[in-house]
């Protein structure tokens, strides 16, 4: 049973991850898919950061009077991951804006339908 308690932080991660992924796959709205995608990416942060924490430790800024610090490496990695996430989001939104201008819709089904009427080579 203690194993389950010790892995509590992972369960939360898993829940968020899957919820995000579900939004991405199941929803047809292009913006909503991107939001789901960022939740999916955000959940990974916890997977990395949570195990780096040591109870009784402090933030990894070395100062007198502290001996136990949390692991700094995951923090660095996740900083990078956050940046990558927002870069992807910005680019995704730019593409969605262009899609909206060209198709007049941001619903996947409507766009696909518009494409079918469009060319014979599909």
């Amino acid at each position: 049973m203690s194993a389950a308690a010790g892995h509590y932080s992972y369960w939360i991660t898993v829940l968020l991850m899957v919820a995000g992924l579900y939004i991405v796959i199941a929803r047809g709205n292009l913006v909503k898919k991107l939001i789901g995608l960022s939740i999916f990416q955000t959940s990974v942060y916890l997977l990395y950061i949570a195990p780096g924490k040591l109870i009784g430790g402090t933030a990894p800024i070395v100062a007198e009077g502290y001996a136990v610090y949390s692991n700094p490496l995951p923090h660095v990695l996740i900083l990078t991951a956050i940046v990558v996430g927002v870069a992807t989001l910005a680019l995704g939104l730019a593409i969605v804006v262009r899609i909206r201008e060209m198709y007049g819709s941001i619903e996947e089904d409507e766009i696909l339908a518009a494409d079918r009427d469009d060319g014979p080579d599909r």
Partner: protein
Amino acid sequence: MTFAHLPILAVAVPLIAAPVTLLLRRSTPAWAVATTACAFSFVASILLALEVAARGVISYHIGSWPPPWGIEYRIDALSAFVMVLVSGIATVVAPYAWRSVRAELPRDRLYLFYTMFCLCVTGLLGMTATGDAFNIFVFMEIASLSSYVLIALGRDRRALLAAYQYLILGTIGATFYVIGVGMLYLVTGTLNLADMASRLPEVADTRPVLAALAFITVGISLKLALFPLHLWLPNAYAYAPSAVTALLAATATKVSVYILLRFYFSVFGLHLVTESLPMPEILLVLSLAGIITASLVAVWQTDLKRLFAWSSVAQIGYITLGIAMASIDGLTASVIHLFNHGITKGALFLLLGGVALRMGGRARLEDVRGLGRSMPLTAFGITLAGLSLIGVPGTAGFISKWFLVLSALEAGRWWLAGTVVATSLIAVVYVWRFVEAAYLSAPPADAPAQGEAPWTMLVPAWALAAACVWFGLDTSFTVEGAQRAAQLLVGGAP
């Protein structure tokens, strides 16, 4: 002095070229900078390959920090081989883009195309050269983000949707990869691939490692468009600008294959991959399913870019089939095919770009009727590359299929060898459809006045088409390089 820094310079020079092209804001200097940077990387990669062949693995410590703490660049036979392919294709496509992209993009955004081009090459080379799991992710994102933009720049509005779908699937793939790497990091405490490999046996066969294997496999498979995760590929290739299609088809999926090989054989090790999970069996089934379905779909396509895009999905199947054999011969076949298919598809898409330029942006089967007379060089080039795609003796494609069949026979799998030969016959059908249209049909009466493609496009394209023949006759570079790489992979596993 500079020679010792080649591993990093091969990646850093295109990286520096990217902001320079942005600051120049003029398309001609930007093009010159991009082409020079790619050519520099190509020379550097060749020198690295020679150096590796002579002296073995090169390890370069970025920031002078020793490996598990700092980031290490690690060039061995396999990564040098892939770097030569990537930078070589980039060096051929860059001069081609000069004329091709001007027809497809608005003028005031041309320089941004070269910025993206440099970034894409940087990302792909960075993924190949690095020996750090997280660094792979960062450069994978550089390559992916820039390729989303490059695809979205296509002039058809469907290019936008293709780019969007690629963005969603690509990001899911990258995130899966990060999850897998995170699990490996949590059980080994390191991100350096070599260090990870040496510490994995202690924890092999534990659940996180197996889950990590699964996540990394799925993540990378999305990127390399392994059947059934290939859905983004045909649209992306069909609607991207011609130069982009050629670059991505020839390099992007190949680098993903490289990452897969790297993880399977250099990190997890042959033992773990083949025995703990039924990975070879799964790969085998998926590869065969991919080859057969995608080839059949290709036969029914009327748009030539889509046709060859589907054929790419099939060809990726042959590459993963070699991995699934998990033997030195299989891997050799896989690595050779990676290279040969790269140059073949590069040649095909470059030549098709020339056709599209003359036909007002399209390259459908009905557009190429009579191409043998109106654009004889282009038509002949496509036919040549098509023969290489089928695997006719005397072309590069034959060499890789030959090794694939050989390795199947050696493993005693007659039926597999038979399937490889039989599926190549499907390739004959779709290549024949082009030949029939180009040489045996009369050109449509209302055909626009056409000439040969401009020489700035024809020369690079023909360079690759000629390479298909060259590497079919002189196999010393590909076969020896691939054999060294395969031995390294199998023997290098702990």
